[in-house]
C-alpha cells in the first residue's frame, strides 16, 4: 500500500460517504461508481477481467433463468470460463512470484500479464451465483448494475469475504432506507481503527521476524539455526497470517458499516479452536462456507451410503480445490494435504478420543486441544509460507533434524534472530513486539466483541495511541491475502 493508495482511498471514501447520505435514490449506483473508480485507480488491469467475467455471468444466468428447459451447455461453458480464468491467474501467480513449489507448469509465459486483483474471490461468487440460478434456488439479479455492485463492491472486492448473492442482497434492501446514524458511523470507524492497529502495530512487526526464519533457512548468516527458534518463527507466521488477514477484514467490514452494509464475518477467533474441525469453522469462514456448500456437501451426499468413502472423497476434494485456489504450487498442496490428514484422522478417531479423554477435566481437554491444534496448524503453515520446497526442506531440517534444538544463548540465538541483530535497541524492539503480541492474544476477544457491539471511545483512543506509538511501516505492508 503506497501513500498514494491510502490517500486515494481516504478521499474516495469521504466523498462517497458524504454523497451517500444525501442522494437516497441513487445510492447503489453511487457505490458501484465509487467502487469502479477506486479499483480502476488502484489496479487498472483488474477492471476489464472483473467486468467481463461478471457481465457474462449475469447475462448467462438471465438466459438460464428464462429458458423453459435447462440449458446445460451454456451453464457448463460459463462455469468452465470462471474456473479457467481462476486457474490462469494462479498459473500467472506461480510464474511471477517465484512460488514454484518445484512444479513446472509453464504452458506459456505469462510474464507480461499484469496483476489482476480480486479474481480469486469474484470467480467463486460467479460460480455459486450461476449454480444457484441454474438449480432455481434463487431468482437472477434484476439488472446488471445490481449484479456488478455485488461483484465489485469495494470493501469485499480485493480479499472477500466471499458472499452468495442472497447474502449480499439482504443488505441492499436497507441501502435505500439507510439514514446517517452516529452509532453506525462510530461502529464502522472503530472497527477500521482496530484493523489498522492490528496490521501496523502487530502484523507488520511480525513480518520481518517470520521472513528471517524462512529466507535465512539455509543459515548463511547464522551457522547454528536452533530448532526452537525456527519453530517459533513458524508459529509466528500463523499469528502474522491471522492478524494480517483479520485486520484487512476488520477494515473492510468497518468501511462497509459506514454505509450501513453488514458484511459477513470471516473469522471467529480461530486461535481458540480446540480441534482442526473447529479451526476450519472459525478461519476464513466465507471461503469454507463456499467450499462446504458447493464442494463438500455435493461430494459427501453422492457417497453418503458409505461413511468412510463420503468423508475421504469430500475432504480430499475440498482441500484439493482449496489448495488450487490459493495457488498452483506444490507447497500449497502439501499444506492442504496436512489439513486433509488432520481432519480425516480426527473424524475417524472421534469415538476413541471421546472414550480416552472422557475422565479428564473439560478445561484440560479444551486448552490441550488449543495447543495441539495451534501446533498442527503451524506445522502445515510451514509449507504455506515456503516459496518453494527447498525452503520447506531446510526449515523442516532446522526444526526436526537439528542436533541443537534449544538455544544455548537466548539473546544471541533467539531474540537477536528475530530482530536481525542483538543491539540493546533491537532487543527492546523485539521485547516490545512480543509484549504486544501477548497482550493481543489475551485481550483480543474481549476487545473485538466490545468494538462490534457499542461505540467504545476510550478503547478506540487507546488503539490510536498504540498505532501511533508502535505502528511500523515496512516491507510487510502488503496484506497477505491480496495475492489470492
Amino acid at each position, binding site marked *: 500500500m503506497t501513500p498514494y493508495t491510502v490517500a486515494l482511498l481516504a478521499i474516495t471514501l469521504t466523498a462517497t460517504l458524504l454523497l451517500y447520505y444525501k442522494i437516497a435514490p441513487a445510492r447503489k449506483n453511487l457505490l458501484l461508481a465509487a467502487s469502479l473508480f477506486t479499483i480502476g485507480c488502484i489496479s487498472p488491469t483488474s477492471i476489464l477481467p472483473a467486468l467481463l467475467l461478471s457481465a457474462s455471468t449475469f447475462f448467462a444466468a438471465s438466459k438460464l433463468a428464462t429458458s423453459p428447459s435447462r440449458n446445460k451447455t451454456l451453464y457448463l461453458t460459463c462455469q468452465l470460463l470462471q474456473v479457467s480464468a481462476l486457474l490462469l491467474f494462479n498459473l500467472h501467480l506461480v510464474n511471477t512470484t517465484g512460488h514454484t513449489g518445484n512444479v513446472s507448469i509453464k504452458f506459456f509465459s505469462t510474464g507480461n500479464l499484469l496483476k489482476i486483483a480480486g479474481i480469486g474471490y469474484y470467480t467463486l461468487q460467479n460460480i455459486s451465483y450461476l449454480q444457484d440460478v441454474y*438449480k432455481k*434456488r434463487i431468482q437472477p439479479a434484476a439488472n446488471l448494475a445490481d449484479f456488478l455492485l455485488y461483484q465489485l463492491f469495494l470493501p469485499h472486492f480485493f480479499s472477500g469475504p466471499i458472499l452468495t448473492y442472497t447474502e449480499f442482497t439482504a443488505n441492499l434492501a436497507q441501502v435505500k432506507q439507510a439514514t446517517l446514524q452516529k452509532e453506525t458511523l462510530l461502529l464502522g470507524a472503530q472497527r477500521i481503527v482496530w484493523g489498522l492497529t492490528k496490521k501496523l502495530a502487530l502484523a507488520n512487526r511480525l513480518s520481518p521476524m517470520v521472513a528471517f526464519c524462512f529466507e535465512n533457512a539455509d543459515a548463511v548468516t547464522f551457522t547454528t539455526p536452533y530448532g526452537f527458534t525456527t519453530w517459533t518463527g513458524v508459529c509466528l507466521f500463523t499469528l502474522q497470517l491471522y492478524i494480517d488477514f483479520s485486520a484487512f477484514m476488520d477494515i473492510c467490514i468497518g468501511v462497509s458499516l459506514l454505509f450501513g452494509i453488514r458484511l459477513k464475518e470471516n473469522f471467529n477467533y480461530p486461535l481458540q479452536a480446540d480441534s482442526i*474441525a473447529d479451526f476450519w*469453522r472459525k478461519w476464513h469462514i466465507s471461503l469454507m462456507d463456499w467450499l*462446504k*456448500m458447493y464442494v*463438500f*456437501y*455435493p461430494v*459427501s*451426499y453422492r457417497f*453418503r*451410503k458409505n*461413511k468412510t468413502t*463420503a*468423508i475421504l472423497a*469430500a475432504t480430499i476434494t475440498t482441500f484439493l480445490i482449496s489448495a488450487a485456489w490459493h495457488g498452483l504450487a506444490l507447497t500449497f498442496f502439501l499444506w492442504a494435504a496436512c489439513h486433509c490428514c488432520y*481432519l480425516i484422522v480426527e*473424524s475417524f478417531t*472421534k*469415538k476413541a478420543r*471421546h472414550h480416552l479423554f472422557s475422565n479428564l477435566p473439560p478445561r484440560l481437554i479444551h486448552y490441550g486441544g488449543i495447543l495441539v491444534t495451534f501446533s498442527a496448524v503451524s506445522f502445515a503453515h510451514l509449507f504455506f509460507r515456503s516459496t518453494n520446497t527447498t525452503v520447506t526442506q531446510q526449515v523442516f531440517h532446522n526444526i526436526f533434524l537439528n542436533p541443537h534444538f534449544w538455544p544455548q544463548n537466548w539473546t544471541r540465538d533467539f531474540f537477536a534472530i528475530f530482530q536481525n541483530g542483538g543491539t540493546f535497541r533491537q532487543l527492546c524492539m523485539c521485547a516490545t513486539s512480543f509484549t504486544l503480541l501477548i497482550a493481543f492474544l489475551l485481550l483480543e476477544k474481549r476487545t473485538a466483541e466490545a468494538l462490534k457491539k457499542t461505540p467504545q471511545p476510550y478503547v478506540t483512543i487507546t488503539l490510536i495511541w498504540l498505532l501511533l506509538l508502535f505502528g511500523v511501516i515496512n516491507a510487510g505492508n502488503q496484506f497477505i491475502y491480496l495475492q489470492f
Partner: protein
Amino acid sequence: MMDPILLEELTQVFRQTFLDNQLIITPATKADDVRQWDSFSHMELIAAIEKKYNIQFSFEEVIHFNNVGDLINTLTQKIKAAR
C-alpha cells in the same frame, strides 16, 4: 401437528449417529445446537434416516433443511408418498 412417534424415532436415529444417549431434539433444533452435528456427520445422519424409512432425500431438499422441523416435514411427506 408433528407426529410424536416420528419425533421419538428420529431422536433415536440422532442419538445413534451422534453417539449421545442423552440427546434431546425438538423441531427447532439446529446443527449449531448439537456439538457433534458438523459437516462430516450431517450426511451420515441423512443416510441413517433414509435407511430407516427407506426413502431418499434429494440434494436440494437436504441443503434447505434449516432445522429438525424442516427435516420432519419433508420426511412426513415422503413417508406418505411411499405408502
